[in-house]
């Protein structure tokens, strides 16, 4: 179901063609990173710290090196030592010393699973045997696992060189940064409030959970050039980070994008890629490394667990007047949690005159976090959307009406940055209000319905595209944006729309780093928006050249050639016969040669995304298990290029949000060792856990974008945890303030409530 506000009459955009890479993916032919092999290839394995926090006193590798079949063993001593300072690297600034030490620990192991050494051998089994022969002497240090413990005065310090601005250059700390965002006067604001709700929330560290483990094949040539085949969200970021970590010039590294088995933000940095090149350089052979699932969970970037205090005030007629929030996020072993994004999204869906937000980035003995779909926003929305629900209840106003009364719209100030341009938040709330789901009645015991909304900025960044016109009139579209969820089809559709071509005559290609201009990561919901913009411009560039050729053929000026419905025709008729691209293409050689359309963008004017999610749950009163009965998500998608894959993003984000809400959680023991390192115990939703997922695409075009595209990938993960929490409250009367709302945690809360009820009843007797 789509409620379109776009008035365009598109031929290809908005249809649902079969994706171009589809057949290879249903026949097993598509090559993912782990599927590559080369003659003489060696297999690499990584030795990892069994301790959460320890000094590395010595590493002895002689016995491992002596094992027949072992070709190389490396430690951080084999990597150049890099400056301990922030440097620009693609999407964000990065501390290269931290990056390098995360790839191979330097001096200290900072989490269970921290890479210590790497081996290359003639088989993966021999490499594994060699790992057992490496002797590491550790001096154990006390692990610091929570933000509360890490922020305590006198807490053991993870990084001796870490400083923050407030505490100054002399004080060792685990607080990497404190950010503050302010508008108006919260004290005055709360005075004007009739109702104030203040709650403290905790959310567990969770993993993106892509099914494909990280992988890399590195091939270092005798001429000093390196080629890396890997499953990554960003080939160019792999190139620049490998260059920095290895001290090899960027121009000597080529990164070839393999198909990628999911990323969700987690494949935007490097772990194995530099090791594959380093081991290849030493051995002279191609080297392949593939992580196990345990390594993925222990040592790649999950997203932050967090502690969030959220206080909001409203007048009795339901106007929000003040919000004060305090957020502390686990960065993992090195700085860089998404707490800033959490702070900048937590109350942004609402027009609140007075806000004060404090945000803390805190290092703990857990893996360095990486981006995860709208990073930081889901934690934050769990807090604010639960408090909003409680305030609506206190005001006696329907939660959807309450949102409409306070919703951000065009002109509303954001927490940071300029006021919103045209956005579709109100439309998502209205769409839920008008949905069959909302209009249906939920009956039966232990059942409840909850709603929550979410906001995400989206990003623009840099993309390149070329559009090649072939002699048979077919078209190839080349971009550098790795396709994780059907974006190739969207790029082809955009070119087909501009050129009036049949979608099956357009072939989309994702090129390696030497074959396309710089393109930033597939992330930030930017691929359809920014790379799609580049493809649109490149196709327009090709069309302009095609018109020139038609003009030449007809001995007219280019502006005298019109193009519509796939047909070149004279602006004013004078007897020349209109022609199609297929008729024109074979004549290009005679009119000046081949045509390549090209464009690059550094996309500005990003359209932010909003979603509103409605959930019905049933809670088992004896076990605390929550069953999702029905779920509907309404999202402002700007303009859906391929609606089936837009729905897919909405459904997939919702499913991940439900997993985060109910089950997913990193369990560390008292020693800081991760106890659930497999997918049986790190419990992601199966198809038995989820119902049909209803989607409502609301189309409010992004102003300034030629097609009105708005990023769609990330925001649907944001509302579900709060929506489920609000539904659980209506089913049980219990306000859940901690994620995940797993059976034991919910059971405990329900028993507590029942005990309080019993004691009240006893007191009344």
């Amino acid at each position, binding site marked *: 179901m789509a409620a379109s506000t776009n008035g365009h009459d598109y031929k290809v955009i908005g249809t*649902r063609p*079969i*994706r171009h*890479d*589809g*057949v290879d*993916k*249903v*026949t*097993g*032919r*598509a*090559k*993912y990173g*782990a*599927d590559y*092999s080369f003659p003489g290839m060696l297999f690499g394995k990584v030795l990892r710290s069994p301790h959460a926090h320890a000094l590395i006193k010595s590493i002895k590798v002689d016995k491992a090196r002596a094992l*027949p*079949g072992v070709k190389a063993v490396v430690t951080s001593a084999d990597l150049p030592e890099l400056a301990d300072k922030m440097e620009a690297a693609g999407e964000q600034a990065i501390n290269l010393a931290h990056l390098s030490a995360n790839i191979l620990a330097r001096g200290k192991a900072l989490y269970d699973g921290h890479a210590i050494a790497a081996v290359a051998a003639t088989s993966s*089994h021999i490499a594994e045997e060699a790992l057992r022969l490496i002797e590491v002497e550790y001096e154990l240090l006390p692990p610091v696992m929570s933000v509360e413990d890490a922020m305590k005065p006198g807490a053991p310090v993870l990084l001796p060189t870490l400083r923050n601005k407030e505490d100054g250059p002399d004080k060792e700390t685990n607080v990497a940064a404190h950010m503050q965002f302010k508008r108006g006067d919260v004290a005055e604001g709360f005075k004007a409030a009739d109702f104030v709700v203040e709650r403290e929330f905790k959310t567990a560290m969770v993993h*993106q*959970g*892509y*099914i*494909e*483990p990280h992988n890399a094949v590195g091939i270092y040539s005798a001429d000093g050039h390196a080629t890396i085949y890997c499953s990554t969200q960003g080939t160019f970021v792999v190139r620049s980070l490998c260059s920095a970590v290895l001290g090899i010039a960027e121009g000597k590294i080529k990164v070839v994008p393999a*198909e*990628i*088995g*999911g*990323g*969700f933000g987690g494949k935007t940095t490097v772990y194995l890629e530099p090791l594959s090149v380093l081991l290849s350089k030493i051995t002279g052979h191609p080297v392949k490394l*593939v992580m*196990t*699932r345990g390594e993925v969970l222990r040592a790649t970037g999950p997203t932050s667990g967090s502690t969030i205090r959220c206080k909001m005030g409203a007048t009795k007629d339901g106007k929000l007047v003040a919000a004060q929030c305090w957020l502390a996020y686990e960065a993992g072993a090195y700085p860089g949690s998404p707490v800033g994004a959490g702070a900048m999204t937590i109350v942004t869906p609402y027009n609140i005159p007075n806000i004060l937000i404090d945000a803390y980035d805190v290092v703990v003995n857990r893996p360095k976090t990486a981006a995860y779909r709208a990073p930081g926003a889901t934690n934050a929305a769990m807090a604010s959307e639960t408090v909003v629900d409680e305030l609506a209840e206190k005001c006696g106003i329907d939660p959807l009406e309450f949102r409409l009364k306070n919703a951000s719209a065009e002109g509303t100030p954001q927490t940071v940055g300029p006021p919103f341009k045209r956005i579709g938040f109100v439309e998502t709330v209205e769409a839920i209000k008008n949905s069959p789901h909302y209009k249906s009645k939920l009956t039966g015991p232990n059942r409840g319905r909850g709603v929550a909304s979410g906001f995400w900025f989206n990003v623009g960044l840099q993309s390149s595209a070329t559009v090649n016109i072939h002699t048979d009139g077919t078209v190839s579209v080349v971009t550098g944006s790795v396709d*994780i*969820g*059907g974006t190739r089809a969207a790029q082809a559709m955009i070119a087909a729309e501009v050129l009036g071509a049949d979608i099956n005559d357009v072939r989309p290609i994702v090129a390696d780093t030497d074959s396309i201009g710089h393109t930033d990561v597939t992330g930030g919901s930017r691929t359809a928006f920014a790379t799609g913009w580049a493809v649109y411009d490149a196709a327009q560039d090709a069309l302009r050249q095609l018109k020139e050729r038609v003009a030449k053929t007809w001995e007219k000026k280019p502006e005298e050639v019109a193009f519509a419905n796939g047909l070149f025709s004279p602006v004013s008729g004078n007897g020349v016969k209109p022609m199609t691209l297929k008729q024109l293409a074979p004549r290009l050689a005679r009119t000046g040669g081949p045509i390549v359309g090209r464009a690059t963008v550094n996309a500005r004017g990003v359209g932010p995304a909003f979603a509103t999610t409605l959930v019905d749950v049933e809670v088992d009163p004896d076990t605390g298990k929550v069953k999702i009965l029905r779920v509907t998500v309404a999202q402002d998608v700007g303009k859906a290029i*391929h609606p*089936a*894959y837009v*729905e*897919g*993003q909405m*459904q*997939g984000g*919702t*499913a*991940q949000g439900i997993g985060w809400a109910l089950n997913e959680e990193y369990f560390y023991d008292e020693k800081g060792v991760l106890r659930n390192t*497999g*997918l*049986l115990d790190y419990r*992601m*939703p*199966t*198809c*038995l856990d*989820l119902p*049909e*997922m209803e989607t409502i695409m609301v189309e409010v075009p992004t102003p300034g974008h030629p097609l009105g595209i708005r990023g769609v990938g990330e925001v649907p993960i944001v509302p579900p945890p709060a929506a489920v929490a609000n539904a659980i409250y209506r089913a049980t009367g219990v306000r859940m303030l901690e994620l995940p709302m797993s059976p034991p945690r919910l059971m405990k809360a329900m028993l507590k409530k029942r005990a309080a009820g019993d004691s009240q009843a006893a007191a009344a007797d």
Partner: protein
Amino acid sequence: MVKKVIVEATINGDPVELLCEPRQSLLEVLRDELELTGSKEGCLTGDCGACTVIVDSRPVCSCLMLGVEAAGKNITTVEGLATGATLHVLQQKFLEHASLQCGICTPGFLMSAKSLLDHNPTPTEADIRYALAGNLCRCTGYDKIVKAVIDAAKHVADGVGTTHHGKVPRKSASEATRDMLGKGEEVK
């Protein structure tokens, strides 16, 4: 070096003789010895189902079976699902319903779904969700996968899309589920 063993099996309809180490899983043998990389490794513990293949008409996580155990078995992998250049109805429906995003779980889902339809050509949505619960997908939320299998089942029930390694006689849903899940005996 561990001594290798000769294993004879039928893979995707063809007799195959291969050499493998006793410690190699069937998944490793398929991927590394036979270059059948369509079966994917997601966990190596039987939790994600990305490596699902059909062994003598039952779906098996190939990461949990040793290569040497394949001796004498009839094994179908995703590479054996299509008939020549004609896609199996499940493959076609997965494409039409946009049931894959990244596609890494797709081979496993296809093989689990094929096994279901082989045993029960008229499954309910509940049957389908039950049969696919051992396969994890992180991209789609399963909605479009389940819809594709429902649609494919319609075609199989109409006799349009049978499978090429023999059609299994129609059974009741409970019989079929029991067959598919096994009767408690180990796969040998």
